[in-house]
């Protein structure tokens, strides 16, 4: 009898709980879920005659050279920029942790996050122009520069921009991880005669492992935003080394290639979803 009443109470409560989510969920349904379902449907239909074409759109996209270029660049970029950023941020965070002026340096590193890409674009254009400032400085020390944004170097400029913009963000994330390690462990280890290096490798690093997942995911999330700088500096058709997925989608959008966009969006979301779930699984088993 009593149990029954409890259960009733719980189901009642559960509906009430969902009411809090409802406005948000309705919006999410209208603006994200339903149209996404439509995109999935469209990926199997022709753009013009709306005829069922099976996997033709997917085949067309995979064979598309621009798609291959964008996938290759985006993949290469993420593969390089995320480990570099995470590693650099870890070095900085460890050095800044518990130091007197660490706060000021951290603020300086966070500042680029606040700068809108349009403001930065002007600086980039002047710095990396073939007759720009960077080449001027290089000429002073006797090095011949390059036309940075119109050669393969554009890729590295973009990589540096990403690190410049996100270093502070990742340092804060690592600092949060460091702050979560209890000082008792270090004290105990020191009593046992562990040196600074041993403490770092046997205490700090293993304890930071749970932070690694979220830092990776958030750095990944932010890596898509480099399109902003790339677009503002180089426009719709930048040097091929920085032609990213967003450029491709923009160009397809402009030519109303919705069939290609749909197929590519579905493929990308499936790959990302697999990646997210894989990372989460690795994270769950690690901690």
């Amino acid at each position, binding site marked *: 009898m009593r149990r029954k009443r409890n259960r009733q109470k719980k189901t009642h409560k559960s509906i009430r709980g969902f009411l809090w989510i409802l406005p948000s969920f309705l919006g999410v349904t209208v603006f994200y879920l339903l149209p996404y379902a439509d995109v999935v449907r469209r990926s199997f239909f022709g753009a013009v005659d709306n005829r069922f074409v099976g996997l033709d759109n997917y085949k067309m996209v995979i064979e598309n050279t621009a798609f291959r270029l964008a996938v290759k660049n985006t993949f290469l970029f993420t593969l390089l920029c995320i480990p570099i950023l995470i590693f650099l941020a870890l070095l900085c965070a460890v050095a800044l942790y518990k130091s007197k002026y660490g706060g000021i340096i951290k603020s300086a590193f966070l*500042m680029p996050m606040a700068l809108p890409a349009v403001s930065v674009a002007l600086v980039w254009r002047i710095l990396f122009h073939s007759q720009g400032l960077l080449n001027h400085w290089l000429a002073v020390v006797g090095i011949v520069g390059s036309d940075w944004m119109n050669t393969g170097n554009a890729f590295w400029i973009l990589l540096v921009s990403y690190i410049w913009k996100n270093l502070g963000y990742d340092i804060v994330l690592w600092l949060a991880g460091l702050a979560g390690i209890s000082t008792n462990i270090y004290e105990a280890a020191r009593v046992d005669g562990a040196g600074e290096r041993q403490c770092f490798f046997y205490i700090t690093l293993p304890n930071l492992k749970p932070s690694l997942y979220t830092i990776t995911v958030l750095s990944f999330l932010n890596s898509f935003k480099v399109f902003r700088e790339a677009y*503002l500096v180089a426009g719709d058709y930048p040097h091929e080394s920085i032609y990213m997925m967003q450029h491709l989608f923009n160009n397809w959008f402009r030519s109303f290639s919705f069939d290609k966009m749909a197929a590519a969006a579905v493929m990308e979301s499936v790959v990302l979803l697999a990646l997210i779930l894989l990372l989460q699984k690795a994270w769950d088993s690690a901690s």
Partner: protein
Amino acid sequence: MGKKKDIKVKASQAGQKVRRILLWTLFVVLALIVLYPIVFLLAGSMMGNDELGSCLGAIFLGENGYARFPLLPKFPTLQHYIEVFMDSPGFFVMFWNSVKVTAGVLIGQFVVGTMAAWGFARYDFPWKKGFFLLYVILMLMPFQVLMLSDYLVLDRLLLTDNLWGIILPGVFSTFPVFIMYRFFAEIPDSMIEAAKLDGAKDWQLFVYLAVPIGSSGIIACMVLGFLEYWSLIEQPLTFLKDRSLFPLSIFLPDITSIGKSGMAFAVSVVTFFPAVLVFLGGQDYLEQGIMAGAVKE
């Protein structure tokens, strides 16, 4: 023997000191490099046309040689700011559009997102885990994946070429829900139980308990949201065609002449100024908001 050890200790201490000085020099240099673009824009915005011409002629006028740039302007002037504020009505339209988009999204997120975060943090309902996972997945999808979906719905609701078409999808972004959820989940159960015993209703718990106690989380979201929507590029670029609706964040200044480049500098500074103010005022909250993403449930 003891003396030898003493010397060794001293030497290693000295070595440590040198290392520390080197490390901090490196950090200060790096910080200065990181901040250089800000100094650069400020300096450029206060240079007269003559000075800009002689410094940047190589880029803007196609002269030979390289551009150069002093750290500070030789004869500082506010001329370009006056031009921006007095003589360019287009600038105000864009500034106002940016304000509308940012304010619209933030107010909406405050209402809708806070409620959803509270629901996730405090209630149990069927498939809650599934819903939450869905929110996390949506939060991690980049714009390009959702671009066509977004367009299809905006097109059907007749919201393309309309600021609401930028604001509404932003309001239902799931990222703030995720961040605020973390803050609400930290409110101790005992506090809520006590309020319930005093006869507080559900909405009263939310308004008088959750919102004030979770305020740092809400502010953190607002700061993160401000920085994001103030510099929004992909959405307005895709969905707005009417130039009178453009926000500042996609305004690419024409810098083919020196006179215009001075204004471009001034506009850049005016664009980042509100963001830097929000950043400086809300840095503690911003850090808390970033960290909220890092803590495991």
